[in-house]
């Protein structure tokens, strides 16, 4: 990353934190102004709405430009690949230009141009190999995955987007899964990735966006280890499904299934424990998600109860656990226990409450009634559906 960009990011981190302090009443306006003066940030930083809108429009411009050139030249495979490479180079130059200016660096346009630049490179490479060079599909896919890992990693290093880090890691693991002993490589590479990046999110020497990228890599590394050791993934040959020449799906040795079953049970608990011990929210959240996946895996192999019992009981259990945790934290001295609190601290509660409207409406809105409902010959159940994932729209 450019040195100026890192300095702007560091100042923005402090200013954003000060915003939270002010919102929570931890500091007054005078102190807030003093913090802003001490950490000047020349960048224009629009809200998320503006950034998403800008990125969307940049996407439209880039795709339409490609469409215009393609329609005008009607290129063959080699020419199309060349066209994509040229557009990618142009996109990277525009990204550099936008990133260099504090007026444009954080508007969302630079991220979109970098993203599409990478997509064009990978698309061009794929077309060049498979269509122009007639490389067989499997080898072309290997090359594109490897290139994808490198290109996204380089983009993350240069422009600091955590999304690019995640895409690079996912591409790497997909590439590894296509090698012999892919599952073992997932385990080894996942563990190595966790070991490499575990301290980086707290490392002052790293730029803030690189620290966030390290956090993404940490989660991907943990997910890879879990994915490789999950008993369902082993049983169903999920990782091996990406192999060039997938071996016949024979039964796994029983000892391996036992080890995987133990790992499926133990890993989420270990991650949860790690998250609690280190008070790293990202690990805590990852542990919760993995625990949920392990419980789904358990339900797949052991039918402890009918589906409705499992759903209702787990829903009730989640509510009870959440309430118990909240009550325990509130009842503790100073409203905190083991370094955890149920208070919002400096986060934006109002924003969270507005955002939660979206999933509630998306999950629980009933299906629409037919327009001419009054003419229908009786109830068909469409309008009276139960809300919730997996629910049916008929009684």
């Amino acid at each position, binding site marked *: 990353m450019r040195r100026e960009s890192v300095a702007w990011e*560091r100042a923005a*981190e*402090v200013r*954003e*934190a000060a*915003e*939270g302090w002010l919102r929570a009443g931890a*500091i007054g306006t005078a102190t807030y102004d003093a*913090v802003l003066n*001490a950490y000047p940030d020349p960048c224009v930083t*629009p*809200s998320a*709405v503006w950034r*998403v*809108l800008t990125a969307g*429009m*940049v996407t439209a*411009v880039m795709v339409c*430009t490609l*469409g*215009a*050139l393609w*329609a005008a030249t009607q290129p063959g495979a080699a020419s199309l690949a060349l066209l994509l490479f040229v557009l990618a180079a142009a996109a990277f130059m525009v990204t550099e230009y936008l990133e260099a200016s504090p007026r444009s660096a954080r508007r969302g346009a630079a991220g979109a141009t970098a993203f599409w630049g990478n997509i064009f490179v990978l698309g061009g490479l794929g077309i060049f190999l498979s269509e122009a060079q007639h490389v067989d599909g499997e080898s072309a896919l290997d090359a594109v995955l490897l290139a994808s890992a490198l290109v996204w990693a380089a983009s993350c290093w240069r422009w600091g987007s955590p999304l690019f880090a995640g895409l690079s890691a996912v591409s790497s693991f997909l590439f590894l899964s296509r090698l012999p002993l892919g599952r073992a490589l997932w385990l080894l590479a996942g563990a190595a990735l966790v070991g490499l990046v575990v301290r980086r999110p707290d490392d*002052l020497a790293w730029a*803030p966006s690189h620290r966030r990228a390290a956090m993404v890599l940490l989660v991907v590394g943990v997910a890879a280890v879990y994915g490789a050791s999950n008993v369902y993934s082993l049983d169903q040959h999920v990782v091996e499904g990406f192999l060039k020449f997938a071996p016949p799906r024979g039964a796994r040795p029983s000892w391996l299934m036992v080890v995987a079953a133990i790992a499926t049970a133990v890993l989420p608990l270990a991650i949860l424990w790690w998250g609690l011990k*280190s*008070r*790293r*929210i*990202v690990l805590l959240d990852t542990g919760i998600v993995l625990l949920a996946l392990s419980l789904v895996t358990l339900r797949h192999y052991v039918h402890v109860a*009918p*589906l409705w019992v499992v759903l209702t009981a787990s*829903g009730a259990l*989640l*509510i009870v656990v959440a309430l118990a945790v909240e009550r325990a934290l509130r009842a503790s001295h100073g409203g905190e226990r083991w370094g*955890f609190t*149920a208070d*919002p*601290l*400096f*986060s934006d509660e109002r924003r969270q409450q507005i955002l939660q*409207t979206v999933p*509630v*409406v998306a999950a*629980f809105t009933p*299906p629409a*009634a037919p*327009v001419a409902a*009054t003419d229908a010959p*009786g109830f068909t*159940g469409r*309008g*009276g559906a*139960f*809300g*919730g*994932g*997996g629910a*049916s729209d008929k*009684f």
Partner: protein
Amino acid sequence: MEGRGRRDLNPDVVAAITRLRADNVLAGPQATLLNRVARRHLVSVRLEIRILLYAGVLLLTSGVGVLVVEHQQEIGPLAIAGALGLAAAACLVWVARQAPPFSWRAVESPNVAFDYILLLGLLLFASDLGYVEAQFTVLGPRWAHHLLIVGVVYLLAAYRWDSRAVLGLALTTLAAWRGVSVSLMSLRRGAADLGDLRTNAIVIGVLYVVLATLSVRLERKAHFEEVFGNTGLLLLLGALVSGVLGAFTWGAWLAALLAVAALVMWLSFGLGRSLYFAEGVVAAYLGLLRFLFQGPASSSSFLVAALLGIGALALIVAAHRRMVER
């Protein structure tokens, strides 16, 4: 827990606190608290508790749905309806007992579970009503009106217990009563049906936008304005875009869409509402794409679309520079 979304140790902030304390910008106790949070010695799990509660409600209502579908013969309709009603009542009674007094202003929830138990109670109520209608056909051929009842109950609950999420659910349920949902863009329906749907969506959308304006003007739950406004604009602009993309007389729809989108952008610019402005820009752009690509795609249509996008970007940058966001 720094800022809006960063909830992990932040070494830049730790270093800044040390410097600000040394420069006497921060007082000792202030710096101590901020330092504890920045160093991850004190971490909030409030969001995690909220997510667990939301997931719990989702699973519980799904479980109840599956139970009713799979076992209604064995359990019997009266027992199911009674049990659902009792469970809903239990939740809503708890909510009523916990709730602070009514106010036309924003009211803080008494605890983190309040919103979710309210949601659970209302969903169980809606399920019960739907089930009763399915089994006993109380409304007969007018069965769809049960969505009106559910929507109105949601609306009353949203106002009484000051819940934006329940208000959002009320607005989409009332739209569903009039046949409008994400299925607006569905091609499965006939042209006549789609025409009716669009009309319904436009009427409801305009009504919601009016209610958004009134809630602010009359200072009656003014913080509900965003929910009313965004739902209304999505329905209104969505219906117009659907008309441009799907209707036979798409030219008239396009003219209407451009006029409404321009009005939305102009008004939202004055009001400082970036999301409304964005919805106007996207809707207008989608409509113009239909105009550009009415025939076979050519290089000139792509080129004009790209130039239009650049124009939209210039508009976005200029609007952001001048708009005072609220």
